[in-house]
């Protein structure tokens, strides 16, 4: 019904109401974290839209898979067989080393590092908000995903779970401006904090004094401090060190090892849980071999 008299509150009052509500929501969500538990339901309500938006990509992938040539498959097969051979050789050595390490740790009365439960997840969508770096993955609360769980790719740490939905969850990348990860240098065990700066290929090391021994090419692994990321997974490689004496700290940048701009398969870790007894043998095999091996 198109009347010249509007029903309900006037336009100005509606705007005032909308703005007041928005400000209240922003404050409650960002400062008080009031929606931590409700976000699961909110995400679940909205996830059908995400699945629809993801449909073209899924269809394209499917058709691309159907159209791959015999030749490409053969080449792929050969490459993977070679890789498998190399990896199994490394694994043989790794098993010996692992046994030896466990032995030595026992001698030193240091607890043996346990195998952890893992699961392969797939990338659903990359967030298109230019101000933040987040991705969606296709595993959620039903698969046991929990808040601030570590996410890896085949090269290193990718980020941590930020919001959990029923069947999918949101991961914030280590390169996001709001993210920082405690790391240590593999060469000399010096500890740093690596923060993201919004670019896929750069992390900053914060508050590094000029006197600290850090060099280009140093490998940085997670230090396990902060108790979010498990210890010892590769994070980044130092890409430049600038000592400008006019500044209080050295400017150190590092390049993430995980290829954050071309993620596809990701690995979720449960550092607190051991793999189930019957799959323990399986869990020691390369991660790419089996999906959902933690189940």
């Amino acid at each position, binding site marked *: *019904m*198109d*009347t010249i008299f*509007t*029903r309900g509150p006037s*336009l100005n009052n*509606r*705007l005032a*109401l*909308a*703005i007041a*509500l*928005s*400000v*209240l*929501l*922003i404050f*409650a*969500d*960002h400062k008080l974290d009031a*929606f931590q538990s409700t*976000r699961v339901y*909110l*995400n679940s*309500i*909205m996830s059908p*839209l*995400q699945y*629809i*938006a*993801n449909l*073209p*990509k899924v269809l394209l992938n499917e058709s691309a898979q159907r159209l791959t040539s015999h030749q490409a498959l053969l080449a792929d097969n050969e490459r993977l067989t070679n890789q498998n051979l190399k990896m199994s050789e490394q694994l043989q050595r790794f098993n010996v080393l692992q046994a030896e390490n466990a032995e030595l740790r026992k001698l030193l009365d240091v607890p043996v590092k346990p195998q952890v439960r893992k699961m392969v997840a797939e990338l659903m*969508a*990359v*967030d*298109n*908000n*230019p*101000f*933040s770096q*987040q991705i969606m993955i296709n595993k959620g609360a039903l698969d046991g995903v929990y808040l601030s769980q570590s996410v890896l790719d085949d090269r290193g740490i990718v980020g941590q779970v*930020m*919001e959990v939905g029923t069947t999918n969850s*949101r991961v914030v990348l280590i390169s996001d*401006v*709001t993210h920082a990860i405690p790391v240590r240098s593999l060469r000399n065990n010096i500890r740093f904090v690596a923060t993201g700066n*919004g670019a896929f290929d750069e992390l900053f090391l914060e508050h590094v004094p000029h006197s600290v021994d850090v060099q280009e090419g140093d490998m940085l692994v997670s230090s396990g401090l902060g108790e979010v990321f498990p210890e010892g997974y590769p994070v980044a490689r130092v890409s430049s060190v600038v000592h400008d004496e006019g500044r209080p700290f050295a400017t150190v940048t590092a390049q993430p090892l995980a290829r954050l*701009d071309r993620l596809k398969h990701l690995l979720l870790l449960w550092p607190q849980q051991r793999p189930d007894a019957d799959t323990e043998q399986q869990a020691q095999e390369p991660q790419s071999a089996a999906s959902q091996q933690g189940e």
Partner: protein
Amino acid sequence: MLRARHYVIASTILVALVLQIMPLPIQADLYRPDWVLIVLAYWTMALPHRVNVGVAFLAGLAMDILLGTALGIHSLALSASVYVLAANYQRLRNYSVWQQAIIIGLLCSLYHLVLFWLQHLLTDIPFQFAYLWPIFSSMILWPWIFWLLRKLRRQLTIT
């Protein structure tokens, strides 16, 4: 019939939401137009008694959930932009489509600046001019969306 008509507006907004989050190659992602804002702008101008600040607020909340921003950021920006349209719809209706496209461009700038400003308050993000590309793509898209939605509205006689 009223129910069926109700669904048309809601479903165009849903389609806009899907287009807003659809994965695109990184090169194209920069130029993604503000689908939700354009669709809301059309309905606000055409049927201001049906779609105005309230619908914009709800669509903004949906975007906040989909994009993972703090709840309320997109709803504030969308409500403010739609308010400007709803307050001036009688004048804007009489403009030609190209003049309207310029207005949409201005509106998109307002929308993006409010978004940037709010997120700048919450987290420390630097401003890049690349954030403003969607303004141009939205301006180019406006005449086509206008034509499409007007056709839809007239054929289904939505009032």
